[in-house]
């Protein structure tokens, strides 16, 4: 940047001031973001919170001049006396990296796979600093130390030789190599495990404070934003619906969407009666540009909400909301919120005797490239009649391997699995009758509803196949399909549709209907909501709860999310490195963790209180991971 621009900015003047930013596709003129305003002071952190389709990532790209071809941003984004949205590619080069830096979501794809980490850092340093080779290397090592990597050999390693958390640290170091004034972090921790997520966010906060850097954190997770940011901006279908200081927004949301998001997230510290789900799914910005973007899903929506775009009105000190009905519904919203905070105490019942699934001392060893990896190490679990059991653990803990062994996709290396009285160490050795019986006993709902349905076939076809495979008797198959669809909250008309015309939540409903087709006694749910938008997660969790109580079936919930097991299970197993480190009734395990690892997991769940990101053990842990 040229030195003859403006004098140094005072702290009360924003470093970045965005006004009426509109992002649209040039070919069809469809808006992606209809209007975004933002004021970022030096050293401040702002969270832009939104689900997929909100336009949050496009906003980030617009602010660093990297919008994809065919997408343009209009409006003003004033930075250092110039409007960023009108800069040429040449002018952008003096801004990117030096003034505004960015890190992205996926540490696994962000770093060039064929370059050593040292080179990535060295090339990111300011080019006009003429450094010798040795000096550059020393600088790279110093930069790694800043992000908590003290192992100097990392400069010689390729990205694929590092863990996700380490890669994200290297990426942060690279993004900061030219010492930008503003860092845009686009979902920096979403692809990481809970423990690593906390470490990375803590690291970003620490560096931010040390450098006096401003931060724009883009996230789908309100809790993360509350814990990390001073101010929050909630973006929905391309327009801001609410802004305010983090604590204010958390305590009393002033827009039905923000409140809906808060309520649909199961709290980690207590169990609630039922999650308040937002119906439907996120519309596209183009479809709602002439009305309140949330009207179609809002329980309080009236004609006035669909009659033009409501203004983003000031509703308090540094507080804005786009809800026109706020004065009328504010009190009702507050009541709903306080009601949802009541804790439900689940009576601690003794576990029933009838074990549907009994896993005894099971073991699974994988061989790869001459190394043996013990994925599951001497694990015993049981699922009783009518019970919901949770298995919680991070990636690599072995939880999914257990699910795969239960449904016969893997064979255990040792130990015994008994399902409904039938020993099933090897599915291949089973008689066809036993196998059919087992398939009717156990059904699975997978994580990714996008790839678990055949895109070429209609929903009706998929359900019919599931029904007739297990029940050759025939009968009224069409009627059964309609019944199944209704039981998961979809109309019978969905039978004619193909997966591509369904939203993620709808697909997961179909996947659940398909699992229910054979009337199973146990449903294994492997991360059933982690691929879904936050506002849709609650719908699916409620649906699973309903299905369970109505049909009296057992559930095995496999997830990385402690809040979900708290909400959805009565008995809990905590897994770490292939072993069960703790088990017991969910409430008592989560309220009084006996194992150190369980405590660490609990500690990693985002919470607004200041100490969540307080560092300390986080960095030492990073050094031992790797």
């Amino acid at each position, binding site marked *: 940047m040229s030195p003859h621009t403006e004098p140094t900015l005072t702290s009360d003047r924003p470093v970045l001031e965005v006004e009426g930013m509109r992002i649209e596709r040039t070919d069809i003129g469809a808006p992606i973001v209809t209007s975004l305003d933002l004021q970022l002071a030096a050293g401040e952190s702002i969270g832009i919170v939104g689900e997929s389709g909100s336009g949050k990532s496009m906003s980030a790209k617009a602010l660093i001049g990297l919008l994809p071809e065919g997408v343009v941003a209009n409006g003003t984004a004033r930075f250092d006396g110039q409007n960023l949205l009108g800069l040429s590619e040449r002018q952008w080069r003096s801004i990117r990296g030096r003034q505004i830096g960015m890190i992205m979501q*996926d540490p696994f794809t*962000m770093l*060039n796979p*064929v370059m050593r980490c040292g080179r990535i850092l060295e090339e990111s340093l300011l080019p006009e600093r003429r450094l010798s080779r040795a000096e550059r290397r020393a600088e790279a090592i110093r930069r790694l130390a800043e992000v908590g990597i003290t192992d100097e050999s990392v400069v010689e390693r390729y990205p*694929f030789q590092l863990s996700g958390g380490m890669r994200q640290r290297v990426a942060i170091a*690279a993004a900061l190599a*030219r010492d930008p004034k503003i860092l845009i972090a686009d979902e920096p921790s979403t692809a990481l495990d809970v423990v690593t997520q906390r470490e990375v966010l803590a690291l970003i906060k620490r560096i931010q404070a040390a450098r006096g850097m401003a931060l724009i954190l883009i996230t789908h997770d309100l809790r993360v934003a509350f814990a990390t940011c001073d101010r929050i901006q909630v973006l929905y279908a391309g327009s801001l619906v609410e802004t305010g200081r983090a604590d204010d927004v958390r305590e009393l949301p002033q827009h039905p969407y923000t409140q809906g998001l808060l309520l649909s997230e199961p709290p980690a510290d207590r169990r609630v009666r039922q999650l308040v789900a937002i119906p439907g799914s996120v519309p596209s910005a183009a479809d709602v540009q002439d009305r309140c973007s949330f009207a179609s899903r809002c329980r309080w929506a009236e004609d006035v909400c669909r009659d033009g775009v409501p203004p983003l009105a000031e509703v308090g000190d540094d507080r804005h909301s786009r809800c026109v009905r706020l004065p009328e519904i504010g009190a009702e919203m507050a009541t709903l919120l306080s009601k949802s905070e009541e804790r439900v105490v689940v009576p601690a019942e003794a576990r029933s005797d009838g074990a549907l699934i009994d896993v005894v001392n099971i073991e699974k060893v994988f061989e790869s490239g001459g*190394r043996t990896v013990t994925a599951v190490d001497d694990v015993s679990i049981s699922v009783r009649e009518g019970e919901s059991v949770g298995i919680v653990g991070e990636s690599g803990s072995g939880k999914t391997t257990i699910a795969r062994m239960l449904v016969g996709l893997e064979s255990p290396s040792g130990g015994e699995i008994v399902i409904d009285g039938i020993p099933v160490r090897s599915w291949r050795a089973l008689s066809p009758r036993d196998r059919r019986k087992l398939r009717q006993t156990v059904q699975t709902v997978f994580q990714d509803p996008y790839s678990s349905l055949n895109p070429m076939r209609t929903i009706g076809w998929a359900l019919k196949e599931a029904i007739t495979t297990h029940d050759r008797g025939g009968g009224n198959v069409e009627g059964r399909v309609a019944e199944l669809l209704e039981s998961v909250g979809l109309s019978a008309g969905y039978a004619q549709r193909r997966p591509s015309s369904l939203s993620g939540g709808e697909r997961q409903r179909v996947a659940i209907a398909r699992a229910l087709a054979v009337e199973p006694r146990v449903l294994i749910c492997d991360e059933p909501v982690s691929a879904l938008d936050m506002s849709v997660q609650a719908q699916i969790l409620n649906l699973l709860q309903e299905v369970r109580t109505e049909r009296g079936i057992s559930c095995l919930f496999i997830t990385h999310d402690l809040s979900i097991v708290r909400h959805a299970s009565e008995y809990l197993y905590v897994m770490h490195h292939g072993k069960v480190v703790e088990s017991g009734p969910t409430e008592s395990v989560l309220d009084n963790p006996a194992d150190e690892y369980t405590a660490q997991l609990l500690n990693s769940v985002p919470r607004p209180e200041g100490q969540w990101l307080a560092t300390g053990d986080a960095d030492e842990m990073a050094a031992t991971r790797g």
Partner: protein
Amino acid sequence: MTGRAILLMIGKRLVALVVLVAILSFLVFSLVHIAPGTAVDAYLGGKPATPELVQLLTERYHLDEPFFTQYWLWLKDALVFDFGESTLTTLPVTDEIGIRLGPSAFLAVYAYVLTMILGVVPGIIAALRQRKLLDRGLVAGAVVALSTPPFVMGILLLYLFAVLVPIFPAAGRGEGFFDQLWHLTLPALALALCVAAFLLRHTRASMINVLDQDYIMFARARGLSWGHVLVRYAFRNALIPVVTVSGALLAFFFAGAVFVEATFSLGGIGELLVQSAQTSDMPMIQALAILIAVLIVLSNLLADLAYVAIDPRIRFEGRSA
């Protein structure tokens, strides 16, 4: 890593080569006995079977020995490049091949270099000008080149640049490096264009895929210049899949140039192969089959080594964290 692991890989591949050639040599040797008529008929190659000639061939090829002894003796000769005499010209097979090896190798390498240049450069340009006029023009041109067989291309080039605008010779292979370069330009072009068109499309797709990757955007977000991002990121990563497909090309150009050799009267290995097949010239077929097999394995080995050199993920396979 480790030079040792690379040497180990080369070693393994060379052992595989030896095994492959051993099996192939047996099959190739058996041809003589599988062919219609007796082994003597095969070696006669249509010449009148005078008792003296039969006697001579029987002695030369040990035809009175048991089958496996014959094979063993044949193999011992083959190891010192003695495959016998061509039944057509009665000259030693190795000499016949030797005369044609030079020009064929020259043509193959020349065509290979042209293919890489004419395929990769426009492929990258097309990807950078995606959906613009230049891109569409290049892709359309590639479709035309892809659907024109090399001998048609050869005749077309011959007419354009040797008859209409006579800047290149119409026939012959030339002496010395530059003379050969001048003589073989049109044949090499004719050979290269079709394959280059395929490579263009492959490079374009690979480049478009790489340009869309997160690491490209992240590099630009750090303020690296577009040129730096192109060279250090896009080209290198986009060429990894290109290198893998280019491996088999060299051997293909070497043995598959028969139409072009005929069009430009070059008299190369391809022509020899067709000729020996037509005249059932057994010793020649045996020698050529083994030569081509060795070339295919070696050029694939070269491509794999190049792959290892440019993609570290291969080097660390199975050892990553």
